[in-house]
């Protein structure tokens, strides 16, 4: 049951010229959130910008007793609302509706888990990595960005024991390639009998490539899609993704309530 919290900004840490991590005083949302879920934020007052914007719950910050104390958002500045988020000062109010959407489905050992993140698509994987590693699932993060300066939170994942496979477009850190290249190589190497779940989040062409690769190697794959969302609650039908049903027919499915996490093999790519 989603709630709407008139959250205060507790901290705003700029990671680069366009990335920041915003800490929001919304413990009740943090307590209920599962990996892969999102919130709808309204960082401005007034009617411009008008609609809320969807953001993955990046971290759930906890107090000494392990109770949720706040959530954070990893945001990339691309327009008016993400600019307000980038510029937000502590004390500012940001209405925060959530948690929303269908979360990732976790796996258990002996299955491995490979997370594939492109750019800000890293956001849902911090909480997922915590969930997976706490269950003892051997977890790998394939993480691609434009340049090394845009690969964030590496120490966070390392501290959880997540294996990191990094790529950048300019080759400044890791392999100079798209993130799908090392993924394909690793898929080819891995024994078919070793169970594995893929999780992917990032730009749509990357998701399509991951979906194709997972199909080719017969691996189940959960992707988190990012569609323009008007409401986040199933009310507006703006966020649809064409998906193939059991009978083979293609339907427009609302990714805010049927997703954002969807089965990659059901999505029909444009």
């Amino acid at each position, binding site marked *: 049951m989603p709630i709407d919290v008139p959250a205060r900004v507790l901290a705003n840490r700029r990671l680069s010229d366009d990335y920041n991590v915003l800490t929001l005083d919304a413990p009740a949302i943090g307590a209920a959130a599962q990996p892969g879920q999102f919130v709808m934020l309204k960082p401005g007052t007034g*009617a411009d910008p008008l609609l809320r914007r969807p953001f993955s719950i990046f971290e759930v910050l906890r107090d000494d007793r392990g109770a949720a104390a706040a959530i954070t958002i990893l945001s990339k500045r691309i327009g008016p609302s993400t600019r307000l988020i980038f510029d937000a000062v502590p004390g500012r109010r940001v209405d925060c509706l959530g948690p929303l959407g269908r979360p990732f489905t976790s796996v258990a050992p002996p299955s491995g888990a490979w997370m594939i993140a492109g750019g800000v698509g890293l956001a849902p994987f911090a909480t997922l990595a915590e969930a997976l590693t706490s269950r003892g699932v051997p977890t790998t993060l394939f993480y691609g960005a434009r340049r090394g300066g845009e690969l964030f939170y590496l120490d966070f994942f390392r501290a959880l024991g997540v294996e990191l496979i990094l790529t950048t477009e300019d080759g400044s850190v890791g392999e100079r390639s798209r993130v799908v290249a090392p993924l394909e190589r690793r898929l080819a190497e891995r024994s078919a009998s070793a169970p594995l779940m893929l999780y992917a989040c990032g730009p749509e062409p990357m998701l399509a490539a991951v979906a194709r690769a997972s199909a080719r190697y017969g691996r189940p794959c959960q992707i988190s899609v990012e569609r323009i969302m008007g409401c986040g609650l199933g009310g507006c039908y703006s966020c649809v993704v064409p998906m193939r049903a059991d009978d083979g027919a293609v339907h427009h499915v609302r990714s805010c309530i049927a997703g954002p996490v969807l089965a990659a093999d059901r999505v029909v790519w444009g």
Partner: protein
Amino acid sequence: MDLSVRIGSLTLKNPLVAASGCFGYGVEYAEVVDLSTLGAIVSKGLFLEPREGHPSPRIVETPAGMLNAIGLQGIGARRFVDEKLPELRARGATVIVNVCGTTLDEYVEVSRVVSDAEGVAAIELNISCPNIKEGGIQFGCSLNGTFDVVSAVRKATRLPVVPKLTPNVTDVASFAHAAEDAGADAVSLVNTFLAMVIDVESRRPKISNVVGGLSGPAIRPIAVRMVWECRQTVKIPILGMGGIADARDALEFLIAGANAVQIGTANFVDPFIWGKVLDGITDYMERHGVARVADLVGSLDTREEAADLT
């Protein structure tokens, strides 16, 4: 304090109605709103058969508004009756069905299907959707078309019939008048304004359907004016809408002449809006000593205070 509103033979417990296409089938919101507390819920627009609607992108934000071209994706009237209506009924919702058609016959047929079902309170005739190629707005942009479709549906059902008017016309009041003449129990207005946003980098439209319908606070002053014009022209109730985002906005429509108000886009921004607006209206009525919400309707005072200098 009497918040009730009469729409033909139907009495709504309060003047707040969820606008068509902005509240899913209602069931989606059952977790955040007690559906029985709303005056009514208008379903998504329904044809006889299911439709998949337009490809995405389907919406784009504009200054204080949004454009949509969903293309009336929907499960069709029959499946709505079978799959959604029972739950809505169980939750105590007052359900108005937004009826679409590509032909006059389809309007009549859909109206029959929903009239035969248990738990439908009224029919809102969508003759004003700007986002589909056939039907709909063609009826809504012609006085004869409006008259014909309302008359035909009027004969096919005993439910209150409420045509929903498009604002994309020169004289909306004449359409309200045609609807009244044809036997409508009320009119809803406004539907969205035909509009367009271009991505200048790619020189492509921002939504797949090229044009879409503008809603939200941006259009509110135009919608208020249209409700006021219709109030001068027709006697039947008016369900007013267009950009209502708080109690003050809702009161503006009531004072301009709406008997009830619908909220669409603002529900996307705040799904908890309903209680807030209702509280704001009752608070206003207390402050101003208004006993019945009906006493506010059309209470705008337009006496001239000062004359022009010329």
